[in-house]
């Protein structure tokens, strides 16, 4: 299903590009113009997308009764621990279980927050906030080590890029 959605999404993007490119004229007397190449490539993309969608539908239909996925022993072990934990459920455990299950989405959301922090508050504050939260998400939760890694890592990056290489770092609207 995800494959079908991705192909449809790109087809919609291409249709949008066709609509936007209506205003681009051809060179007089030729088929050359700003919209020639996008039209050609966009049309090919739609053809290939249709083939992919048909293939994906065919694969979906070919799957018979859904077979329950074999559980990874570690997950099952962890699952059984979870059942015990549920009995004394705490907010913290529920939160940890949630971010474990949705860790990819959480990582992406964290990067969005990091982007906003860089825009408004700059590199140092943004990175000092990101590193401990990302390490927590990745289940690296030794407080002293996290503190050391955050401070030393941010300093190292700052010194390497800004001081040694002269590469500018985001300063943020607040401090810019």
């Amino acid at each position, binding site marked *: 299903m*995800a*494959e079908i959605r*991705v*192909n449809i999404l*790109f087809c919609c993007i*291409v249709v949008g*590009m066709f609509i*936007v*490119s209506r205003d*681009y004229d051809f*060179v007089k007397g*030729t*088929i*050359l*113009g*700003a*919209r020639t*190449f*996008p039209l050609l*490539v*966009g049309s*090919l*993309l739609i053809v*290939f*997308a249709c*083939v*992919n969608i048909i*293939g994906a539908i065919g694969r979906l239909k070919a799957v018979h009764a859904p077979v329950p996925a074999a559980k990874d022993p*570690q997950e099952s072990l962890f699952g059984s621990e979870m059942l015990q934990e549920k009995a004394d459920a705490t907010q913290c455990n529920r939160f940890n279980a949630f971010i*474990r299950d949705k*860790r*990819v989405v959480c*990582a*992406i959301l964290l*990067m*969005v927050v*990091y*982007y906003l922090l*860089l*825009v408004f508050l700059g*590199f140092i504050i943004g*990175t000092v906030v*990101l*590193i401990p939260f*990302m*390490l927590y*998400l*990745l*289940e*690296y939760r030794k407080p002293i080590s996290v503190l050391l*890694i955050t401070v030393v*890592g941010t300093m190292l*990056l700052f010194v390497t*890029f800004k001081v040694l*290489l*002269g*590469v*500018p*770092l*985001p300063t943020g609207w607040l401090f810019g």
Partner: protein
Amino acid sequence: MYLFTTMAAPTLLGGIALGIVIGVLPGLTATMGIALLIPLTYDLSPSIGLSLLIGIFAGGIYGGSVSAILLKTPGTPAAAATIFDGYPLAQRGLAGKAIAIATIASAIGGLIGALILSVLAPQIARIAVRFGPPEYVLLGIYGLSMISFVSGKSLTKGLFAGCIGLLISTFGIDPITSVPRFSFGTLNLLTGFGLLPILIGMFAMSQAIAGVRDSREKAPEQMPLTKIGISLKEFLWILPHIIKSAFIGTFVGAVPGTGTDIAAFLSYGEAKRSSKHPEEFGNGAIEGIAAPESGNNACVNGALIPMFTLGIPGEAATAVILGGLMVLGLQPGPLLFTEKPEIIYTVFASTITSNLFIIILGLAGARIFAKVLSLPKNVITTFIFVLAVLGSYSMSNNMFDVLVMGVAGIFGYVFSVLDYPLPPVLLGIILGPLVESNLGRTLLVSYGDLTIFFRRPISIFFIVIIVATIGSSIRKYFRRRF
């Protein structure tokens, strides 16, 4: 001489060391390392910056063998074939011997590849200087036809991905009419999408997101590193395989769209086929380590041939290096040989010298590089996110590039999950402008007459190889299906 009278040699050494560290760590690839470390070259001269990138590339491809041998996990895809005999040899308590074989084979294979590059590249460039717009159109189409080789099992997925790359390349100013395309009145989109943020997003950020997904996987058991070295008899035994694999690797690398992993597997396959004891392969045969390592390092230099002479990337890492060259203000192609020969000769010297440095660093530093494997993976993943952001920001000091990088990263991750290949997207982005601008020029010059392609000998040559390439892939595709 330029290499040894400036900072180029120490920079090359530093690049190789960085590359080896990146290659050793599973989940980090040479391509990602180059993409992340391109910002280090901004303040360097083009020659020195190029030496750094070549060092990272060569070191990264070699470094993957360390984790392949000790951890049964290739540090880079190029080292996948090394696992077959490297890990079993390590399990027999001979990890040091395996590392020594991998190091020596990589160095000799890379050296042979570098010598072929030095001899062939100027000759190809002499022919390429005579290319006109029709030849560049067909060259671009030939490069795009390689999508069929990098598509993996599904040709239509690869072609779909290639079309996405071509469409991305249409953002910005139209090369023929100079009309702003799809800019929506914003300055950021007027020049199109930056190549570097897309590269960093697709190859570094997407890998980091995959690292988050796989963060709970248990790491395999690491073999202990024993005494590093091989006997003269063993060296002479593997030498013919090293030399043969070097030629295979160089010529595989010279074909646009292939990669070091293909070179490694082909070399391994040929070594097994021609061995007097093929039954030993898979159980710690020393030729089974030497052949793929020689092939993949030779491929590094082979891949530089089409990049420097024609401006077409030989594989993903050279595509990233090509982006890095543009950032350094260099335009790869045959004119580089005439306009900036000092750059070309520094490249030749760097590729040859890098192999000497690989032997020194690989043998002397193997224990240090093996320790890198014990770094916590989650800490490394966290810093990849930060480096990806820094790398994409630092090119133009523009947060829009960071946004592009992020979107490309999510897109690259989704594509990898759905088993859609990423190299065709890259080929489309890089070759799209080449094909479009030269097609426009060709049609203007010939007043729309397409027979111009059939009136020029080099064009006819390209048409023949394009038809042969596409025909061969279609035949393979239908043979697999039916």
